[in-house]
């Protein structure tokens, strides 16, 4: 796997050397599963072209919940959430954060979080386009 990634980046090394300007961000949001549709609509409205969605489990301030089967109580520590990942150019970051925050909010504990991190490179596998051109 490592080899394959290396192969792609080797081809475009000269081109990217100039362009490493940290002009993209990866926005990762943990949201309530039932809010996924609202969030998808909100971010595509502000111009996001693609999103990756994963079903995840975890806990925050909401903590877990209790399940009871024939009187046996089980404390479920981790509750189901949905993780979405969006790669965007810097220009779009604030609008996307805003869109997610607004559309995913219920005001109750457990609404989730948004993490923003620097994104070094993006490569479109089909064409070999890189970075902002590949978003």
């Amino acid at each position, binding site marked *: 796997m490592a080899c394959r990634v290396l192969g792609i980046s080797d081809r475009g090394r000269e081109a990217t050397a100039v362009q490493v300007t940290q002009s993209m961000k990866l926005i990762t949001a943990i949201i309530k599963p039932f809010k996924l549709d609202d969030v998808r609509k909100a971010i595509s409205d502000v111009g996001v072209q693609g999103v990756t969605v994963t079903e995840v489990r975890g806990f925050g301030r909401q903590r877990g919940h209790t399940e009871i*089967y*024939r*009187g*046996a109580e*089980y404390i479920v520590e981790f509750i189901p959430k949905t993780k979405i990942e969006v790669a965007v150019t810097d220009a779009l970051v604030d609008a996307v954060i805003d869109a997610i925050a607004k559309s995913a909010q219920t005001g109750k504990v457990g609404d989730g979080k948004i993490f923003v991190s620097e994104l070094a490179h993006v490569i479109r596998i089909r064409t070999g386009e890189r970075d902002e051109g590949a978003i």
Partner: protein
Amino acid sequence: MSTSSRLGCALMMLLAMPVVWADDAPASAAASAATTEAPTAAASTDAPAAGPATASTAPTEPVLVGADKISAGDTAWMLTSTALVLMMTIPGLALFYAGMVRKKNILATLMQSFACTCVVTLLWWVIGYSWAFTPGNGFIGGSTRWLMDGMVFIHGDTENKLTVSHLALTIPETVYAMFQMTFAIITPALITGAFADRMKFSALLIFLSVWSLVVYAPIAHMVWEPTGWLNLKGVLDYAGGTVVHINAGIAALVSCLVLGKRVGYPKEAMPPHNLSLTFIGASLLWVGWFGFNAGSAGAADGRAGMAMLATQMATAAAALGWMFAEWIGKGKPSVLGIASGAVAGLVAITPASGFVGPTASVIIGLIAGVVCYVAATSMKHALGYDDSLDAFGVHGVGGIVGALLTGVFASKEISGSGGSVLTQLWGVGTTVVYGGIVSYVILIILDKTIGLRVTEEQEREGLDISLHGESLE
């Protein structure tokens, strides 16, 4: 390698057992046949059966009759009932249990019911039917139907002839033996709920086989066959509350005590993997139970209709009883709760179904739903045994509640004979003591020879992959 040879040894043991039993069985069968003068037993009790006895002297053993003695209506209903009761085990009970285990044990749980169906079918053919439903001594039947020898249908030039059981005179003996076979199948399958997730498959097969012959067949004989001593005593068990449910329930309790708890119980979370399977299973059990209870009339008659009505009433009442008890006690009405309550109601109405009317059924159901809820929750936790899927809590306790309440509510109008709680206690006590002790002995012998439990590593990995080499994704 060694497992298979040990399995072989144990099977030899199993085959040797009937020989030991056989020593006294034929002799006593002959003796009792000689001494039975009149069909007093058949008349004085209400075993499931007894279609209208048209012959002037009712037979006391299976007899050859002309095909004109057979009722098409009764036979049609009993054929249907037989299929319904088989459906209770596969897939009903199998799904009911499989949904409650963890994902890694689903296939193993399904396998237990299916394999039980196959094994008991053959044993019933070899010995079981004869020991249960032919005349013998008060304890066990005779050997006249070993390998179902003598159970015939003969195509004649002028008239067809066939045998009928003395317990159901208007249907072919083949149908009666098949119908009772499906009861013999579900009873050991019920026990598997107690030791889910941890018993070796080889040990399970041997346990179920031996149990079916030395516990189920004698108890069925004692309660249902006219020469059985509990039958002579007047113990009422319309469709198997004692024979099937108390019997399986007590074996379940003994086996979960002998096997010990699941690894990690009760500290680790072991929530059911897929309650929708349990829901489907419970629903199939409910539908199949009409064959079980209304079929136990042995005929398509008014009593069968009353039994069906009683079954429906008690089941609904028990399901709601459990649901409301849980709602009040734990805050939420659960799917597992209402489904478990329905099964508890079905169990409790089983012995009573042909003896009581709809009102009594509702009362029996409500009591069973609440009592079984307490048994499967508070009582189990207080006593600390790991009856994984509550085979004892639902079938044992529900069966006892039903058997005793049958004594309270049995209606002379419906059945021709009233009941007595004291008499019912004989049935409950005998089954608990005999079934409990013999189950314990079988399990201990198996534990000392081939071992009952899988290794801890296999248990952690799950029985699907470690015992059967398959898994669900």
